[in-house]
């Protein structure tokens, strides 16, 4: 049960920060980037599927654990042990099995009781379901459950053993039931002597050979690979000899580069490639190791957000003097991946593309002058949009940050100042912290104290207490109250007003922070189990009271 911790504030040690940075660092040896949420168990940035199958490929090909650290994997994989990592796309039973196998492969302990509780929830009599909402148990899920129980030394319920034995004794192999039969043979292979002679050896051998004959006449595809590999493993456990798969029978699945790619997928499928290697398909080779962190292989959503995460993480890395460790690989990533992609996608101009560019500029500036100059040359800051309308405060802010981080000509500055002046004069009455932010950025670009005063005035309308602000208001009447507190607004307000107070403590009192994290709102704090790199960078700088450094960090 969650305890009331509204007055505790983040106390994150330098060691914890270093651990998080290293767990979040994804690299292929040359290039690298950071991902957000490496210690989140609810929505981690790592792919359960890729991590297990890449690890199995590594193990098979003598590459060990590819540098994965047991503690780093444990930090995110726990949700799958509970069968609650829906973001993986896998059902609960597969999540548990994948997580248990992954932990085993990297040499980390598996919480047996936690797994047992999850399996209990999935059990229906003598079988197991894919998920708690499944209508009935199936032998494939039961085979996974039994494999986990045997691996962890958990007892296999006697009803499961009895039902499997009964089914094995009565099963005939037909193409439609092939997967079920192979699953039953896997259960028999895992149970070994636990079956206690309930199924005669010749029955098991007969089923193995019948399944092999059925498979040999089937069309070769991904399911064929999986079923063949499963059958051969079960046969080996049952000491039944069957002929190996002919190397030429599955060669049509192998790509020119020696891997197996599922149709329409952008990268080789590690599971299909693993099975092809195990079965000895002609032409298949171990693919080169793809980019991963010491915690696992990243998922697509994490990669999509990696520019912003990397800009923020470099600020975090500076706090613990680790930035030099990552700069070179980030420079390669910027020049070889992100910059070409952004040049390609430069139009149409949207807030999204502006944010990508701002994040890349912030990152480049942190890495070094040369890279910052190259990014500026490749992505010249666009002219400032002529609009001061409501939601376009964000566009104005991004335009001005872009301008501040580039080397504009005197004419560009003159034009920009004219647009800013017009936008200031055209401001409505409703205050906005984003507007305050662009006023402050403009005051710095044009060295204009009047604009700073306007920014301060705007921020004061939204100040709840020193260091605590609301993002905007729909009325000019009265002052905002604590329930409207926003972490982003409080960051911007603090950056503009530079209070003397300990703002992190203030944020904690307002319910925006607890011992190990902060969130945009008090409600978000209840739901999140980690904080993004940008928030961590803000908190660390704020704890040093370096309020001039807390905006902009990354978007």
């Amino acid at each position, binding site marked *: 049960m969650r305890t009331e911790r509204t007055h505790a504030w983040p106390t994150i040690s330098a060691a914890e920060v270093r651990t998080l940075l290293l767990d979040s660092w994804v690299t292929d040896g040359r290039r690298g980037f950071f991902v957000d949420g490496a210690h989140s168990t609810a929505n981690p940035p790592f792919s359960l599927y890729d991590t297990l199958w890449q690890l199995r490929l590594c193990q098979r090909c003598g590459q060990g654990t590819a540098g994965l650290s047991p503690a780093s994997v444990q930090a995110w994989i726990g949700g799958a042990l509970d069968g609650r990592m829906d973001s993986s796309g896998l059902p609960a039973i597969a999540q548990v099995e994948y997580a248990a196998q992954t932990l085993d492969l990297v040499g980390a302990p598996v919480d047996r009781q936690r797994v047992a509780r999850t399996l209990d929830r999935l059990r229906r009599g003598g079988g197991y379901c894919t998920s708690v909402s499944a209508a009935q148990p*199936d032998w494939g899920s039961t085979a996974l459950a039994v494999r986990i129980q045997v691996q962890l030394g958990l007892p296999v319920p006697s009803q499961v053993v009895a039902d499997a034995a009964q089914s094995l004794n009565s099963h005939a192999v037909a193409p439609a039931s092939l997967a079920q039969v192979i699953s039953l043979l896997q259960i028999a292979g895992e149970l070994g002597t636990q079956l206690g002679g309930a199924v005669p050896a010749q029955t098991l051998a007969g089923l193995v050979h019948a399944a092999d004959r059925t498979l040999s006449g089937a069309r070769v*595809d991904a*399911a064929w690979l999986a079923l063949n590999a499963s059958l051969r493993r079960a046969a080996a456990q049952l000491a039944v000899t069957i002929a190996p798969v002919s190397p030429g029978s599955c060669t049509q699945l192998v790509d020119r580069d020696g891997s197996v790619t599922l149709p329409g997928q952008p990268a080789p499928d590690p599971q299909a490639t693993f099975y092809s290697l195990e079965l000895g398909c002609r032409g298949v080779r171990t693919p080169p190791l793809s980019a991963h962190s010491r915690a696992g292989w990243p998922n697509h959503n994490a990669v999509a957000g990696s520019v912003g995460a990397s800009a923020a993480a470099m600020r975090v890395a500076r706090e613990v003097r680790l930035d030099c460790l990552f700069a070179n690989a980030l420079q390669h990533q910027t020049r070889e991946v992100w910059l070409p992609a952004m040049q390609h996608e430069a139009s149409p101009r949207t807030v999204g593309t502006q944010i990508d560019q701002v994040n890349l500029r912030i990152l480049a500036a942190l890495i070094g002058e040369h890279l910052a100059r190259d990014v500026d040359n490749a992505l010249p800051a666009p002219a400032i949009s002529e609009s001061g309308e409501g939601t376009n405060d964000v566009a104005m802010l991004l335009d001005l940050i872009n301008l501040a981080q580039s080397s504009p000509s005197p004419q560009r500055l003159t034009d920009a100042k004219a647009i800013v002046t017009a936008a200031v004069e055209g401001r409505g009455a409703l205050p906005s912290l984003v507007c305050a932010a662009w006023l402050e950025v403009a005051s710095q670009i044009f060295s204009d104290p009047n604009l700073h005063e306007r920014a301060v005035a705007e921020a004061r309308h939204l100040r709840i207490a020193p260091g605590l602000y609301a993002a905007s208001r729909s009325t000019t009447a009265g002052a905002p109250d604590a329930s409207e507190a926003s972490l982003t607004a409080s960051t911007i307000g603090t950056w503009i007003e530079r209070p003397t107070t300990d703002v992190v403590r203030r944020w904690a009192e307002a319910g925006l922070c607890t011992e190990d994290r902060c969130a945009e709102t008090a*409600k978000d704090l209840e739901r999140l189990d980690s904080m993004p790199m940008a928030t961590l960078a803000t908190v660390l700088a704020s704890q040093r009271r370096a309020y001039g450094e807390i905006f902009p960090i990354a978007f």
Partner: protein
Amino acid sequence: MDTAYNRVKKLMRGKLLVWAKEVSAGVMTKSALSEQGSSDAANAPMNPQLDNNHWLHLRESSSITPPGGRTGEITANGESYLQVRFFQRNRATFTKNSSRVAWLGDSPFNADKVIHTDNWRVDAFPGAITISNAPDGSISEQPGDLQWQTEVENSWISQHSWDEVTFTTSAVLYRSRFNVTGAFQFGSSFFVVTARDSAST
């Protein structure tokens, strides 16, 4: 408040179609799905002066008969019409959401299970995000993120259809994503494929 009336209304407005082979034989076949191109959705009207609307097309498996003539096995695809008004970029509505994941191989003809996950996700600056009109059974594990997962037994296809999901913030929503994932069970093995598309607004 999620009253009984609202729940019934939701169920009537959105519909979940899960097609078993037997049911869908007259409606959609594997070959028909494999030949399916872009829908007429791409021709829908758009007014760039007033909106930032986009069709999101998830076509990871468009080339399901790759060079070499091997039969495509697995597909995930879908579409959604994303509506973001130019002067109201605090609200993103994914409308006409449709997605399907399918096993197109024939040995076996059906997967033991098809687990189908739709994921809608938006990024905002700054501020909190609220979600409305979410499908029953969907979950939000982090702000701006919604997952809808269903599963069907002994089938080659699963299809989702949902009229609209809306994400709202007090600030600006600047990127919207729609991902569709299919996990296909064959005995004790699972294959996973994902199709994705996104739009900056």
